C-alpha cells in the first residue's frame, strides 16, 4: 500500500483539488512552486534556524514516569506544548510564511477555530512584517476572547465570519472567498492538513519535524528509532500527520488517531468524522466528512474547539480506509478526565485537543515492554476557563 501523495494530489481515493476556477490560478501557482521552494537549501536553512531559535525546537521527548507506572507501560510525551505560542501550529505557520515571502505575497489570510492557528499566523506575520487578516466564526470570537485579544495585540485584523453556522468551517469559507477576491497579492495560510492539493501535503511536510525529531530522540532513549505506538488527536489532523509522517511506511508502528466523540457518536453532538462521516468534498478536498443524505455539511460538536471540524484531512481518510491507522474516539468527558490525570501525575496541563490523545491510554491494550509516544500537541492555558468550570 502506498501512503504518499500521488502527482494528482491524492492519497488513495482522497485529496485532489475540487476548487472553482476562480481559485485555479492561485492553487496551481502554489502547486507548481511549493516543492521546489521548500526543498531548496536556503529555505531549509532559514526554516530550521527559526524552528530552533524562535520556536524553541527540538521539543523534548519526555518519559512520563508516573503515567507509565499507572498504565504499566512506557509512555513518552512529545512536548509540542512547549513550542512558542503553545502548540504545534507554529511549525506550519513558520514554513508557510517563508514560502509566502518567496512567492512575493504581501497579504496573509487565515482561518481559525479556537484561535491557535490564528495566533500562530499573527505571530509569524508580526515577525515578518506582513499584513495579516484572520477569519474567525462570530460564535468562536465570543468563546475564545483571549486568543482574539492576542491576535489583535500581534497586529492582525480579526474578521468575523457571520455566514452559516458562524464557526470554523464558515471562517474557512470566508477565507477562501477573500482569496478569490484578492488573487494577486494574497497568500492563504491554511492551518491543517485540509483544503485543496497541495495544502494537505505541504502542511504535513512542515509538521513532519515532529516525527523527524522523535526518531533520534527514541534512538537515544530506547535504542530503537521507532516506538510501538504513536497516539495523536485528529480534528483536521495536522499534529497527527506530523507525528505519523516518518513512520507511515513502517508497519511495525501502530498509528493511533483519536477523534473527538463529543457527547458520543450515537448522538448528533460529535466530531468523530471517520465514525459518522461519509465520502464527499469539503473545502476543495475529497475526504470523509459529516453530512446528510443531501450532501449538506453538518455541524460537529466537541468540547475542544480545535477538533470541532466536520471533515478530516485526506491523508487520514486514507489511513482509515486502508486500515493503516487505528481510529478511536474520546468523549468530552473522557478528555477532561485525562487532562486532570496528566496534570496531577506529571504536572503538565495539556490542551483539550491533546487530552483526547491522552484518553486513548484507557482504551488501548498496552504492556510493560512497549514504548508509546503520545503527541502532546498543545498546552492548556487557553482551556483554563473550561478546566476550572468543569472541575466541580
Amino acid at each position, binding site marked *: 500500500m502506498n501512503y504518499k501523495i500521488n502527482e494528482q494530489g491524492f492519497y488513495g481515493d482522497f485529496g485532489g483539488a*475540487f476548487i472553482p476556477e476562480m481559485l485555479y490560478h492561485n492553487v496551481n501557482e502554489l502547486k507548481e512552486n511549493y516543492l521546489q521552494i521548500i526543498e531548496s537549501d536556503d529555505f531549509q536553512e532559514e526554516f530550521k534556524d527559526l524552528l530552533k531559535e524562535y520556536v524553541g525546537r527540538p521539543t523534548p521527548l519526555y518519559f512520563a514516569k508516573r503515567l507509565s507506572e499507572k498504565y504499566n507501560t512506557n509512555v513518552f510525551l512529545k512536548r509540542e506544548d512547549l513550542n512558542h505560542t503553545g502548540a504545534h501550529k507554529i511549525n506550519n505557520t513558520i514554513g508557510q510564511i517563508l514560502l509566502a515571502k518567496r512567492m512575493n505575497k504581501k497579504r496573509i489570510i487565515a482561518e481559525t477555530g479556537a484561535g491557535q492557528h490564528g495566533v500562530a499566523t499573527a505571530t509569524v506575520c508580526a515577525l515578518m512584517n506582513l499584513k495579516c487578516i484572520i477569519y474567525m466564526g462570530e460564535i468562536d470570537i465570543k468563546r475564545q476572547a483571549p486568543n482574539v485579544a492576542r491576535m489583535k495585540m500581534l497586529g492582525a485584523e480579526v474578521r468575523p465570519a457571520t455566514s452559516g453556522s458562524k464557526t470554523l468551517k464558515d471562517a474557512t469559507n470566508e477565507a477562501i472567498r477573500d482569496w478569490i477576491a484578492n488573487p494577486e497579492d494574497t497568500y492563504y495560510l491554511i492551518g491543517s492538513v485540509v483544503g485543496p492539493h497541495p495544502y494537505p501535503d505541504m502542511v504535513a511536510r512542515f509538521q513532519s519535524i515532529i516525527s523527524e525529531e522523535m526518531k533520534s530522540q527514541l534512538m537515544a532513549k530506547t535504542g530503537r528509532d521507532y516506538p510501538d505506538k504513536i497516539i495523536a488527536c485528529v480534528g483536521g489532523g495536522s499534529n497527527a500527520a506530523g507525528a505519523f509522517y516518518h513512520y507511515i511506511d513502517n508497519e511495525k508502528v501502530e498509528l493511533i488517531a483519536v477523534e473527538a466523540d463529543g457527547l458520543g457518536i450515537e448522538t448528533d453532538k460529535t466530531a468523530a468524522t471517520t465514525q459518522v462521516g461519509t465520502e464527499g468534498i469539503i473545502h476543495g478536498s475529497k475526504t470523509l466528512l459529516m453530512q446528510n443524505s443531501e450532501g449538506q455539511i453538518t455541524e460537529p460538536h466537541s468540547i475542544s474547539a480545535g477538533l470541532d471540524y466536520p471533515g478530516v484531512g485526506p491523508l487520514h481518510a486514507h489511513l482509515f480506509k486502508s486500515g493503516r491507522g487505528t481510529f478511536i474516539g474520546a468523549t468530552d468527558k473522557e478528555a477532561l478526565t485525562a487532562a486532570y490525570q496528566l496534570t496531577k501525575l506529571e504536572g503538565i496541563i495539556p490542551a483539550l485537543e491533546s487530552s483526547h490523545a491522552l484518553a486513548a491510554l484507557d482504551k488501548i491494550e498496552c504492556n510493560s515492554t512497549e514504548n508509546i509516544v503520545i503527541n502532546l500537541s498543545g498546552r492548556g492555558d487557553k482551556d483554563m476557563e473550561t478546566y476550572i468550570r468543569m472541575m466541580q
Partner: protein
Amino acid sequence: MKRLKNTFNTKSDILNIYVTAGFPSLNDTITIVEELAKNGVDMIEIGMPFSDPLADGPTIQNSSQVAIKNGITLELIFNQIKEIRKTVDIPIILMGYYNQVLQYGADAFFEKAKAVGVDGFIIPDLPLDVYENAHQQKVKSLELDMIFLITPQTTDERIRLIDSKSSGFLYIVSSFAITGSKSEIQQSQIDYFKRINGLSLTNPKLIGFGISDKKTFNTACQHAEGAIIGSAFIKALEGRKDIKQTVEKFICSVKSTQ
C-alpha cells in the same frame, strides 16, 4: 442541448436569471420561474442550495440557508422543474456544488435532471479533468450541456482547453470576485472581455458576477451574447410575498428600452 443551442442561434442580449430553489418560500420557485419566462427572460439558472457555497457571495449563501431551512431537497427541486416544464420552454440550467451531485449519485443525478427537463449544469468546483474522466460520457450521451467558468486569471491556453470541454456556453466571471460584490464595470474588465473575444472560441459566452442592473447588463451585452444576474435578483426577492409583482418590476428595470 437543443434549447440552449436554439436560444443562442435565435436571440441576442440574452438575459439569464439565477434563482435559488426553495427561496424565499419552499414552493415560490415555480411561480418565480413562470413569471420570469412571461416577462421575457431568456434563460433560467436554478441554484441547488448548498451549506458551503464557496463560489457564492453572502446574498446567495443566505438565500441558500433559508431554502435549506425551508426544507428544499434535490428531489423537490426536480419535482419543481417538472412542474415548471409544463408551461416554460426556455433553457433551464442547474447550478450547484459537486458534493451534492456525488451524494445523489452522479449518473442518477444527470439522468433525473434530463428526465425533468434540465438542459445543462454549472458545477463550479467540478475540476475539468474529473469531469472528463468520470462524467463527460454520461452528460454527452444524455445530450446535456456542461458549462465551465472562465476568470480574469485564466490563461488563453486554459480558456481554449475549457472551451473545448464545454458545451452550451462559457460562463465569463467578470472580475476577481465572488457573486454579488461589484457594481460598476471597469475598463480592466472590458479589456479582459476583449481578450476573450479575440480568441475566437467555439462556445457563446454569458458574463456573470457583478451584473446587477440595466447599465451593467447592457455593458456586458456589448462584449458577450448576454449576461447572468444572480445576487441582485435574490436581493429583490428577499422577504417578498408579492412574487409576481417583484419579478415583473425587476425584469422591467433591466430590460426596459428607455
